[in-house]
């Protein structure tokens, strides 16, 4: 019997012996199997800044995992060898059921687990069970996603999540359809849900030359973030590098990132960053009140942290939004 997956907006109708569009949720004998549950294909220890999360436990190590599969098909995917394959196609599969995953994170001195690299939406059950166990031993749960998920499953998952960096790939439905194989509205809904459910939220926008670098669109996106998510929501503009099926475009020029950052700050966002550009002034956090350097960064490395222990500017005592302790 065919089944209908309700997890993401695709709502795939999956006949027996086939998978959803994500390649990893498979119908076996009329039951949908989460085939990569406890079977990650990538495990690394990353700094928090690599996620990127700049306002959540800065400088702490994060045990980061991913399984095969994804429910989007971005032409510029950075992890396509992982995300655009099913479990049966992977050379490397580790066995790490939730209790083992928690042990691995603790053994390696990590304070958090990040579900990342591909899109953890497609290994939802593994995230949920691992996150519940992680919570019990004081580990934080971080969800790095493109946010293409239905509202109710996300709302349930938010109960065990602590932070997310969610991609907002463009403020344009046509871009989502043509470049990512998705749609914009569910992603906006997901961002609002994270905010409503109290999960610490940062947003990343990868700027691709000629495709989503229009300043008027960036302005509209920044205003939407300001109005719907709050002016204190960190926004990361990230530099595109040609890869996978999008090798015909050049890397994003530095001036484009500078202009985007300025446009978003003009729209009222207070913490706007530039990523994938080493040593850029936009890597660091400044007080929106008096411009004091709060956290200096070079790449993923923190060069100085001047925040007070309770997350305030040392000069003007303004509270800086984030989860600092």
């Amino acid at each position, binding site marked *: 019997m065919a089944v209908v997956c309700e997890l993401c907006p695709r709502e795939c109708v*999956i006949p027996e012996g086939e998978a959803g569009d994500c390649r990893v949720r498979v119908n076996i004998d009329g039951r949908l199997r989460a*085939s990569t549950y406890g079977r990650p294909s990538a495990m690394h220890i990353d700094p928090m800044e690599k996620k990127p999360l700049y306002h959540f436990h800065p400088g702490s190590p994060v045990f980061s995992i991913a399984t095969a599969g994804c429910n989007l098909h971005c032409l510029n995917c950075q992890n396509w060898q992982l995300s655009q394959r*099913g*479990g*049966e196609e992977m050379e490397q599969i580790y066995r790490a059921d939730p209790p083992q995953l928690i042990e691995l994170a603790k053994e390696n001195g990590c304070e958090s687990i990040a579900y990342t690299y591909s899109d953890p939406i497609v290994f939802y059950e593994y995230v949920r069970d691992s996150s519940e166990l992680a919570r019990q031993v004081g580990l934080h749960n971080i969800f790095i996603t493109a946010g293409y998920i239905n509202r109710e499953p996300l709302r349930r998952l938010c109960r065990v999540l602590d932070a997310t960096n969610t991609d907002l790939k463009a403020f344009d439905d046509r871009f989502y359809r043509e470049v990512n194989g998705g*749609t914009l509205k569910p992603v906006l809904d997901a961002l609002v849900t994270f905010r409503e459910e109290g999960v610490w939220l940062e947003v990343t926008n990868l700027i691709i030359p000629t495709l989503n670098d229009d300043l008027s669109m960036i302005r509209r996106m920044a205003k939407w973030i300001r109005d719907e998510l709050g002016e204190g929501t960190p926004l990361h503009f990230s530099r595109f590098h040609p890869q996978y099926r999008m090798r015909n475009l050049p890397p994003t020029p530095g001036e484009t990132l500078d202009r985007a950052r300025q446009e978003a700050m003009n729209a009222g966002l207070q913490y706007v960053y530039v990523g994938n550009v080493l040593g850029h002034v936009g890597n660091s956090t400044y007080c929106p009140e008096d411009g004091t350097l709060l956290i200096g960064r070079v790449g993923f490395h923190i060069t100085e942290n001047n925040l007070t222990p309770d997350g305030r500017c040392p000069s003007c005592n303004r509270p800086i939004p984030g989860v600092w302790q």
Partner: protein
Amino acid sequence: MHRWIYHWHRGDSLFIGWVAATLLLVVLYLGSLPGLEGGGGSSGRRIDIEAFKTRLDAGELSGHEALWYHPKEEP
């Protein structure tokens, strides 16, 4: 232009036919690629089910039941 219209040759028909066939092949090829369009109602994706079952039986993949699905009602 005038000469071309009024002095149609068999070779011209063959050329037009060749161009049309090429376009048809391109359209068929593009149509066979996995669709990028998002939205609801996607159909299933065929996988190498024998390879899948082999790795499932070996424990390299999991049979853990998923959440968030329901049987499709027959019409």
